């Protein structure tokens, strides 16, 4: 009986395996790139909200601090959404007839909360606490983008919360300018080469990059 496969079959099979592996790698790479596009991350896409609230107007235009409304950002894991009463602090007197604010007035009258659409969300396997980040001097804009320029609110650039974006800062906290005095001391306060500096920063990074820091 003649042989079914010529000797060259070996090479063809090897090439096919190699091509298969290549295609698989390519597919993974494409999936990774596609997953990072704004089509999937929704970064830069304004969310539908019951009231077309403009951070641009309130923050850039009027100069209101983030914490005027997001009261618990410094003390709690959750930055806090303002209750209707916070809106009514001004809007009981200003723009009282505006059609745009009808939902706010209705909420104030009935006590039924405004159902805002959540913009940023972390998966539940991430333990995240606003207070520690704010207290260590991370600006709101570092993660949320330039919210003060958003006429409607969207997921901010520069990143839509991928683990590697968190790790970029947790691995090299000294590269991110902040107000944290302790970190400034760690990263700049020691004269270069002084004993203890490198060790202290390394210990800081070791704690920041421990799995348990974010996954608990």
């Amino acid at each position, binding site marked *: 009986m003649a042989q079914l496969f010529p000797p060259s079959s070996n090479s063809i099979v090897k090439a096919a395996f190699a091509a298969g592996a290549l295609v698989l790698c390519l597919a993974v790479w494409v999936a990774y790139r596609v997953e990072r596009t704004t089509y999937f991350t929704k970064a830069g896409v304004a969310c539908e909200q019951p009231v077309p609230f403009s951070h641009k107007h309130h923050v850039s235009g*009027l*100069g*209101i*601090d983030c*914490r*005027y409304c997001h*009261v618990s950002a410094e003390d709690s894991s*959750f930055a*806090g*959404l303002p*209750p209707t*009463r*916070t809106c*009514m*602090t*001004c809007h*009981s*007197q*200003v723009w009282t007839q505006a059609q745009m604010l009808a939902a706010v007035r209705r909420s104030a009258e009935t006590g*039924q*909360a405004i*159902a805002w659409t959540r913009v940023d969300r972390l*998966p*539940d*396997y991430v333990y995240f606490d606003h207070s520690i980040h704010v207290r260590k001097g991370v600006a709101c804009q570092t993660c949320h983008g330039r919210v003060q320029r958003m006429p409607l609110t969207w997921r901010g650039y520069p990143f839509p919360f991928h683990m590697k974006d968190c790790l970029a800062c947790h691995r090299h906290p000294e590269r991110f300018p902040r107000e944290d005095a302790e970190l400034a001391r760690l990263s700049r306060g020691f004269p270069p080469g002084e004993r203890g500096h490198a060790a202290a920063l390394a210990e800081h990074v070791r704690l920041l990059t421990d799995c348990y820091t974010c996954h608990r």
Partner: protein
Amino acid sequence: MPCPREAASLVLALAAALCACDRQLGHQPKFHPLDPSPFFSDGRSSRPLVAGTIPLDGPDPALATGIKDGRYLAAFPYPVDRAMLLRGRQRFDIYCAVCHDRTGSGDGMVIRRGFRPRPPDFTDPRLMAAPPGLFVDVIANGFGRMYPYEDRVHVRDRWAIAAYIKVLQLAAASRFQDLPGQDRRALEALK
């Protein structure tokens, strides 16, 4: 040959487990703050406080409102130091300056955009003589058209803001020649 089949089923099981990963661990059956809930008729998982709720470890009412036995507290219950004044300035700029302006003149941005009535200037003689308890009371309970801020400003911060208002009053009432020589020279250098 059970081996390859076992391996294949293992891979399949692993793939299935990984698919479910995000749904089970990423969306755990629990409520985050302000998550909706179909259980309650108002659709909220965070329940409003029952009327008349008193916090178990709540602050002394006199400290929280600045009033004791119907009179405004005239002395600060916390040490007034540099840290407290800096904190007071920060809190004032966040919560008060919107209307009262950073200088306390009562001409903040929201007032310029039409909020009426205009709040009084802190250099008003009545307010210059006012005890700090009055400012704490107004922060906690509101005044006229000003809403209460007791849900936004912590008790200690109310006193820090009251102390900073006293600083603003002192600054507004100071004349150039009353300044210490060092401050005068610093100001002249700015000219």
